């Protein structure tokens, strides 16, 4: 069954790369929604159903941690798998993301294999 995905990153390049990497990771992609930041991601989600969210942490307007907290506090979205993908290497932020309910964490740079491994058991 095709998987609808939301990719949240302020870099258009990374959003494009992640779409390609998901295909390389054998994910059967359905609709792909893209957002520049957490605020836009919440708006894009609206009534759309997605089966996976990939989100950066450091973004303008609403960062990935606040977006994650909002998603986990929302009855409709609290169980959707979220993987954080970011250059942020600070252990504090990694711990914060996991405590807020992220299902996984991948540091940029990444390979398609790393994304694939991270998605095993999540989707």
């Amino acid at each position, binding site marked *: 069954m095709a998987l609808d995905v939301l990719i949240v990153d302020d*870099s*258009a390049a990374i959003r494009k*790369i992640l779409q*390609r990497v998901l295909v390389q990771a054998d994910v059967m992609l359905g609709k792909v929604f893209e957002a520049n930041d957490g605020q836009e991601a919440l708006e894009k989600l609206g009534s759309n159903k997605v089966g996976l969210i990939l989100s950066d942490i450091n973004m303008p307007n609403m960062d990935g941690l606040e977006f994650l907290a909002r998603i986990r506090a929302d009855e409709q979205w609290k169980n959707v798998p979220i993987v954080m993908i970011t*250059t*942020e*290497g*600070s252990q504090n932020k990694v711990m914060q993301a996991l405590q807020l309910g992220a299902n996984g964490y991948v540091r*940029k*740079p990444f390979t398609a294999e790393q994304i694939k491994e991270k998605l095993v058991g999540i989707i």
Partner: protein
Amino acid sequence: MENEKLIAGICSATGEVFSMMLGIELQNGESHQETADDESFDGVVGLIGLAGAWVGAGRLSCSAEFAMQVSTALLATPYESVNAEVLDAMAEVTNMIFGNVKTNIEEEYGAMGLSIPTVIYGRNYKARSVSSSGWTVVPFFCGKERMDVKICLAPGSGAFARAEQIVHQALRP
């Protein structure tokens, strides 16, 4: 010693980004210090600010041809001119390299934040930092192409910087 760690941090971050994201193996050149950056330049420059206990800037520069080669490898799309997608790709490469440099050197320099990257493309232009501290420059080679990764850092003087330095020193074993 600090400079050696900085250079090692740059080499490791740049090598990882190119190898993992682009499938390109770079050759490291000989690092050096630069006190002024007054030379005219043709090509693409990515700039990013660093702020924390230490403050400064990171800079990546290469030819337009290499920027297109990098973007083609990163986005799996052929580029024959420096367009918005190439500039976005170079901004992301700048962000990933200095994001990882930051992580590699934070133990020594304290926690830092990164600004949003800026990319400039043109001919015969100069880019100058007003910092009095020099640049640590590490050149990288890919065939005939050269890419310079530079960083300048100086102790910050603000309240955040002082607090960071105190905490950093207190936490040192």
